[in-house]
């Protein structure tokens, strides 16, 4: 008698595996990255390449040490994605060792020391980002102005040169590249407004700076829109749910609207907050990291909304101009609690609350 082949039901699978999911997220960052290249130069591409190489090497070595199937693990693209997200979060011309150290930390410490994919409590990219921000504040805040208002433009070769040596091929330093056409050193729009407010200016006065185009930082608006497109693509393809980005953007918008209505001189408008800084990237690409986010539908709404609130709170009253990383990490810690209290009502069961009463 022939031996029959056995398997457990279901025998069907929709054939979308982790690797595919992670790759789709990677693809969805492409519009944002291209916009970034357009406005700020090739630096971001170099960071992405460095990050991915570091991530693959780090993950590969650890897999070998842990005696796992290295190739299979690398093919899940989770390390690539974490590296990619870290790379697009740091200043494009940061020295090469910044992204290498950051990626190594993300993969080796935040992800693998916790047990590898699926077991890390914190978002690897954001934990890496915060480590870098605290350790190397100067390098991590050296953002460039968009080409349209920069005194110096730089080529791909310049970008490579700067990342590896600190100077362009023609000898300019990052500090010099940061100088705008008005002769002053440029900061990010969020930073500019924050500094101006501390110096006693109003938001409107701060936005009269050359880097602004109405409400939005020149270049930054388009980068944000490009990431928004990528994010909508992810929702459309059901890679992510609307819950986290939706609630995160909504809560950030509502809180900033409330503050704006309270005192428009002190607090920027919701649109300013949404399209400056990394709120959009954070909402669609960072906070949606499945491993470290909440797992229930209600929980994801709470998780996202709380991140949105933290972002606006820290932006307005904290020490840092932007706050996605901090907000996400804070809420990562709250996930077990959120999950426990947001269990859905099972079919045929009464609500937990009505059961108690």
């Amino acid at each position, binding site marked *: 008698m022939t031996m*029959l082949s056995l*398997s457990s039901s279901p025998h069907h699978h929709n054939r979308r595996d982790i690797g595919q999911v992670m790759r789709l997220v990677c693809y969805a960052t492409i519009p944002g990255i291209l916009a970034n290249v357009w406005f700020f130069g090739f630096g971001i591409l170099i960071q992405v390449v460095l990050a991915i190489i570091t991530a693959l090497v780090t993950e590969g070595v650890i897999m070998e040490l842990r005696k796992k199937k290295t190739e299979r693990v690398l093919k899940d693209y989770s390390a690539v994605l974490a590296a990619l997200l870290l790379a697009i979060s740091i200043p494009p011309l940061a020295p090469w060792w910044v992204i290498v150290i950051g990626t190594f930390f993300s993969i080796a410490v935040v992800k693998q020391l916790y047990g590898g994919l699926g077991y890390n409590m914190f978002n690897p990219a954001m934990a890496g980002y915060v480590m870098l921000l605290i350790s190397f504040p100067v390098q991590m805040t050296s953002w460039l102005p968009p080409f349209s208002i920069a005194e110096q433009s730089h080529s791909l070769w310049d970008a490579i040169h700067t990342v590896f040596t600190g100077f362009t091929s023609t000898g300019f330093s990052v500090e010099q590249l940061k100088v705008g056409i008005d002769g002053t050193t440029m900061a990010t729009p969020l930073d500019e407004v924050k500094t101006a407010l501390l110096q006693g200016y109003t938001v409107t006065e701060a936005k009269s700076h050359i880097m602004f185009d109405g409400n939005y930082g020149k270049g930054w608006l388009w980068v944000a829109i490009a990431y928004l497109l990528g994010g909508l693509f992810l929702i459309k393809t059901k890679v992510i749910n609307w819950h986290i980005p939706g609630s995160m953007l909504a809560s950030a918008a509502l809180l900033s609207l409330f503050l704006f209505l309270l005192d428009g001189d002190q607090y920027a408008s919701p649109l300013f907050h949404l399209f400056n800084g990394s709120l959009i990237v954070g909402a669609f690409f960072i906070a949606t990291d*499945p491993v470290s986010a909440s797992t229930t539908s209600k929980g994801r709404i709470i998780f996202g909304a709380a991140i949105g609130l933290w972002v606006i709170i820290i932006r307005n009253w904290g020490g840092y101009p932007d706050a996605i990383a901090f907000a996400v990490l804070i809420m990562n810690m709250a996930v077990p609690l959120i999950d426990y209290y947001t269990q859905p009502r099972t079919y045929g069961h009464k609500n937990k609350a009505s059961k108690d009463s």
Partner: protein
Amino acid sequence: MFANYDKIIERISLNQLWDFPGGVHPPQQKTLSNQSSIEYLQVEKTYYVPVKQHIGIEGKLLVCEGDKVLKGQALTTSEAPFSVPVHAPTSGAVTKITNHVSAHPSGIPELSVIIDADGQDTWIELDPVPDYAKTSKSELIERICDAGISGMGGAGFPTHIKTNNSKPLEFLIINGIECEPYISSDDRLMREHAWQIRQGIDILVHILQPKQVIVAVEDNKPEALETMSIACQQKINYQVVSVPTKYPAGGEKQLIQVLTSREVPANGLPIDVGCIMYNVATCYAIADAIVEGKPLIERVVTLTGEGFKSPKNVWARLGTPIQSLLTYGDYDQSQQSSPRFIMGGPMMGFTVTSMLTPIVKISNCILVPADNELPHPEDERACIRCSACSDVCPASLLPQQLFWYSKAKELEKAEEYNLFDCIECGACAYVCPSEIPLVHYYRQAKADIRNQKEEKEKSDKAKIRFEARKARLLKEKEQREEKHRLAAEARKASLSTDGGGTKDKIAAALARAKAKKEALAKQEALAEKEALAKQEALAKQAPHIADLAESEKTKAVSVSEVSTEVVASQTAQGASPAKDSPEDDAAANEETKEL
């Protein structure tokens, strides 16, 4: 919380249904098999009729080896409320009554009547009901039982139990959803035999007196919708409803939710929310039993998948080995690197362990997928907590939490997360990007929990017995001592009245009494020892039984090890759930409730 009767009627007449949470849309693949009429098979040489093909207990055997039987003759009879008889699929001789591989994931052999056909295919004398409307309900229900009918949609719940309802019934729901991909047996049955299905419904209406009949058909079966609508158009309180295609809309609980917005309470029955549901094939069988007097001896089986050169639907007699069906559908061996035959659909079906596995009352499909059609799953990866599983769970469970607790053997936690509300539809595993065989883990955990409970019950019983015995022994001892004391007192009394002359006699009597007492004490010690030994044996027995079961399960598992590394690795982690198919679970719940 739930919609009332009028609201439901209004919504249904407007075809505005409700929805159930989650669900998936796997490729339908129905057209593979539903293009041509149901075909009749030639009479087989040999049939293997398992005596138990439903949820409950088997009937009492009526035949012996060597007996001649006619087609439709009862092989067993229903003695207990939950037993359902089986019948001879053709005329011939009972060659053997023995254990034969079962139509169950484990394939564990079950008692079966093996019949060699004589080729005449002679019916037993049929005894139809001339006019069911003039027949008492109890007689009709008895006939349904005697015809061997149990739910044919998958659960195999005894139909006569379900039909014997005394609670007020609002909706009699006829399930023609057939939501599993590939399967088209109900589809073809509705297209070709809508009128007989309607007859079955009429009989049920006569017995159950519902306020409204809803015939629910998924909207991917427009032809069946049409034929059923035509068959039911004269009846004002029969409504044929087109239900949006989504898996598992055909699940009893899900369909009730879609049609009425009501939820069957946990550990409850559909009747608790005013509903009773029958599969269309069951209605057909009921009409056969009452109007024609024919017992259930055949059913429509879909032969499908790219492993068949000519996929189709056939009328297969119960007891037909799937080997014959493979021949009938032109099984193409070149499509499969290693033979794999699925009984049921791709979502909830199981792989059979033998070519001689028989068709039973709940077998609606034999699916033979080509290698690349339904590929074996890869090794599972780590759960990335993406919650795709909870997004598709129709019971609103948290499948990944259930998975963690099941895998970690934190069974109490798993139960707390309502593990037993899982209907094992497989939607979660279908979407899992880590390809974790989630349902498999749940089955294992359920089996483990059941085993634990059984063992606890056993040990509790043993404990009670032990305590009772101890108390009895103590009482006996006390009684003996009392007797001795009384006897001694009596002797003392007689001594004091007798005086000194009898001293020698007394001394002798005392010596006798002492010897007797010693012997008694010895005996007692022996009895105590024996009791202790017995107790130990009893305590040992429980784990011993478990061991036995375990070894049987490993046997079942070892088959899979050879063929698929994956399955083997999964099953090896714990005992394979030998005896519980998903439908069993649901129905087993029902069963305990009814009992």
